[in-house]
C-alpha cells in the first residue's frame, strides 16, 4: 500500500493495490536480454512468447500479476499443482531474473512507453468529439458495450493503439464482433456475443439488454465481420488528435494501479 490514511480513498487517488512488488534486487544482476532469452527457451513454449498463454495459461492475468515475486519464484522452482514442471536447474539467480522479466511482460516495472502527444487534450477528445467514452469505460467513466480501456495502455504500444483506432476490424476479438440474428419468430437483433455454445447464444444489444437465445429458435446468425467501432477515425480525427488520444490511453494505463480487468468469457486461464 503506497497511500495510507484513515477514512475512504476514492478511486482516483487509490494507488493502494499491493501488486507493485519490486523484483528481488539480485535479479538486476542478470542482463535483461539474457532473461528474455531464458524466457523464450524455458517458458514461451507453454505460456507464449509474450506470456499471453499458449498450451499453458496466460501469465498476464490479474491473479498472476497479483502474486508476489516470492510466490512466482517458488512456482518456477518447485512447479505447481496445476501441472507446471519444476525448474530448479535454472538456479535461483536466473529464476529471479525470469520473474523480473515476466513483470515487464505484465506491464509492470520499466516499460515506460513513449508518449508524444498531449494526454490532457486526448482526454477531452476521448470524452468529447471522438466519443470513445460512449462505448469504452476508462477509470470508471464511459460505456459498457466495448472493453474497458483503463489498463489498455499498460500493455499496448502507441502504434498498436493507433492501429486499433483507425483499423478497428484488423484484429477483431470474438466479443467485439457485431452479430445479426433473426429469430424464427421474425425478431431481428444486432449486438455482441457474451457467451455461446452449440445450444445457446447470449447476445448483448447496445441498450445493455442481454438476450438469452436458444439456437433452435433462430433462423439466422450472421457475423458482420465488423466491430461497433466507427471505421472513419483515420479521416475524422487529425494525426495530432489521434496521437493525443493514444497518449491519454497510455498515460492512463501507466499511472493506474494494476486493476483486474473484467472478463466476459469463460477463459480457462483465470
Amino acid at each position, binding site marked *: 500500500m503506497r497511500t*495510507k*490514511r*484513515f*477514512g*475512504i*480513498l*476514492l*478511486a482516483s487517488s*487509490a494507488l*493502494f493495490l*499491493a*501488486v507493485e512488488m519490486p523484483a528481488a534486487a539480485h535479479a538486476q544482476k542478470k542482463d535483461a536480454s539474457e532473461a528474455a532469452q531464458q524466457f523464450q527457451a524455458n517458458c514461451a513454449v507453454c505460456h507464449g512468447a509474450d506470456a499471453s498463454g499458449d498450451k499453458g495459461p496466460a501469465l498476464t*492475468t*490479474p*491473479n498472476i*500479476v*497479483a*502474486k*508476489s515475486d516470492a510466490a512466482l519464484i517458488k512456482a518456477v522452482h518447485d512447479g505447481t499443482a496445476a501441472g507446471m514442471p519444476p525448474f530448479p536447474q535454472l538456479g535461483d539467480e536466473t529464476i529471479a531474473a525470469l520473474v523480473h522479466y515476466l513483470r515487464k511482460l505484465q506491464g509492470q516495472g520499466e516499460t515506460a512507453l513513449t508518449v508524444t502527444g498531449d494526454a490532457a487534450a486526448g482526454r477531452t477528445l476521448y470524452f468529447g468529439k471522438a466519443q470513445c467514452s460512449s462505448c469504452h*469505460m476508462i477509470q*470508471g*467513466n464511459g460505456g*459498457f*458495450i466495448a472493453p*474497458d480501456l*483503463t489498463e489498455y495502455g499498460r500493455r499496448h504500444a502507441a502504434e498498436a493503439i493507433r492501429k486499433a483506432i483507425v483499423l478497428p476490424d484488423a484484429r477483431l476479438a470474438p466479443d467485439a464482433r457485431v452479430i445479426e440474428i433473426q429469430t424464427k419468430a421474425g425478431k431481428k437483433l444486432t449486438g455482441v456475443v*457474451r*457467451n455461446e*455454445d452449440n*445450444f*445457446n447464444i*447470449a447476445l*448483448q444489444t447496445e*441498450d*445493455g*439488454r*442481454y*438476450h*438469452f437465445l436458444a439456437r433452435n429458435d433462430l433462423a439466422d446468425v450472421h457475423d458482420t465481420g465488423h466491430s461497433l467501432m466507427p471505421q472513419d477515425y483515420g479521416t475524422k480525427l487529425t494525426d495530432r488528435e489521434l496521437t493525443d488520444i493514444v497518449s491519454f490511453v497510455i498515460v492512463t494505463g501507466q499511472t493506474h494501479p494494476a*486493476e*483486474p*480487468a*473484467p*472478463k*466476459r*468469457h*469463460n*477463459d480457462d486461464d*483465470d
Partner: protein
Amino acid sequence: MRYGKIVFGFAAAGFLLLAAGTQQTHGQAAKASTAADNSTGLIDVKQSDLLQKQVTDNWVNYNGDYSGRRYSAMSQITPVNVSHLAPKWVFHTQEAGPLEGTPVVVAGVMFMTSGNDAYALDAATGKQIWHHSRAVTEGLVDDAASHHNRGVAVLGTRVYMETDNVHLLCLDARSGNLIWDVQYAPENKNYGATAAPLIVKDKVLVGTAGGDSGVRGFLAAFDAQTGKEVWRFWTIPGPGEFGSESWPGDQYLLGGGTTWMPGTYDPELNTLYWGTGNPAPDYDGSVRPGDDLYTSCVLALDPDTGKLKWYFQYSPHNLYDYDAEQTPVLVDANFKGQPRKLLVSASRNGFLYILDRTNGKYLYSKKFIANLNWAKGIDENGRPISNNLIPDEKGVRVCPSVSGGTNWYSPSYDPATHMFYFRSMESCSIFTSKHQDFQIGQTYYATGAGRPQGESTKGVINAFDLDKLDFAWRDPLIGTTFAWAGVMSTATGLVAFGDDAQNFVILDGHTGKPLWHFNVGQIIRSSPMGYAVNGKQYFAVAAGSGDLFAFALP
C-alpha cells in the same frame, strides 16, 4: 424420525391425480412469462424493485427482500410435483474457493461472488456473461484470510460488493467494469469484509469482519452514485460516549462488535436492523468490564443518518464468541392475539427471541439448545441470567459451543404457515483463556475453544410456530459433514436447505417430512434462494468447493 422417508408411491400418485392442478399452475406461469418478457435481460433496478413485498422472479438482495424472510412467493413447485425437481445447470467458479454467498437474480441475470471475484450468469443456463476478476489479498488475518464473500447488492445498472481487504466495489452490471473502488476500513489491518452489501434508498450499507482480531466494529453508508461516505456508526462507543465504561483506555479500538452479515430494513418505520458480533478479546472479559455495548446486539438505526433508535443486547459481556449476526427477520403477525410488528431471531446464544421492532421491547424467548448451560434463562426484560462460566487457563465446558446454537446461515419465515425455520447445532466447547496483548497481524481471541473429547456435533432443522409459540417439529440431521447451510421457504410450504450429508433437501414445512433431495457431492455452506426466468421457477444454492447449482421442474 421423519428424515429420510420418502413415499414414492404417494408422490407419483399425487402427481397424476393433481395433473390438472399442475396444468393450471403452468398456465399461470406462462402468463407471468409474457409479462416478464420485456424485463428479461435488462438490468435497471429501481427502488420499487427493492421494495417488493412478494419475491417472485427477482431475488434482489442477499435475503431476497428487505424483511429477511428468505421466502419465495413462487408457487409452481409444490409438495406434489417437487419429486420431479432436477438439476438444470452447475456453474463452477474458476477460483474454486469456499462459496458462502447467496446469488442475486434480476431480469434473468444472476450475480454471484467467490472471494473477490464477481460473476454475471444467464440464470436459465448458468452460462457466464461477465467475470470481474480481482485477486484475493495475501497476508490477511483469520476470517478475512479465508476470503469468504456472501454476494452482491444491486441498484440501477450497478452491482456492489465488498472485498476481503475491506473495499467497496461498484461495478457496471452490464459489463462487469469497475466504476469505483473505495477502501472503507481504518488503518488496522486486522479488518476484513465478507458480507453482501445492502442498498437502502440511495445508499450502500457495508460492514466488516475481524471481530475476533481486535478491530472496532462499524456500519457505514456510502452514496451509491459517487462512493462518498454519508455516515458511519461505530458499534463500540468512544471515550465519554454512552457505554464507554466497558472500554478503558484505548480498548474501544479493539472491541469487536463487527457487522459481517447484511441487515434488514423496514421502509414504513424507516428503520434499519443490523446485528453486531462478539466483543474482543473473545474469551477474556477482564479487560472489558460491563455489558460491552454494542456487541452481540441488534441495532435499530435511521438509514438516512446512521443515528441509533434503539438496541437490544442478546448476550451482554459475552465470553463465548456469541455473535448476534443472525438475520433479524421482520415479521408482521399476531403475537398473543395482537397484530404486531415483530423482529424474530434465533440467536447464536441458543435462545430464539421475539422483539417489538417499533421500540426494541423484549416480548418472548425460547431456548432451542437442549444442553444449553451458559445461562439459567432469560429474565422479563430479555436479559440472560448468566451461570458465570468464566474461561480460565484450566478450561470450562460451555454449551452451545463456540460455533453457536445457530450461526450466520439464514433462517426463514413463511407468512402462510407462520413458521420460523432455522438450523441449529447441538455442541459444546471447552473454553480456555489467559491474558493476551493485542498485536496487528494476529487474532485477538485471548486463547481458545475446543471440542470436549468424545463429544460430537449434531445439526437440527427447526420449525417454530409463531401462533403456538412452540416448535411444530424438529428434524435431526444424519450425516458426518456438518453443513453451514441456511434455509428458505416458499409459498407452497416447501423448506429448502443443505443437510449434513451433502444433500440439497426440500421438505414439507408443515410436517418436516422430506420430499426430495439431491446429492451435490460437497458440503453446502450457504443459504439457498429462488427465482424465475420466463415463468420457470428455480431453486439455487452454492456448494462448498466452488459450485453453484440450479434446480427446476423438467
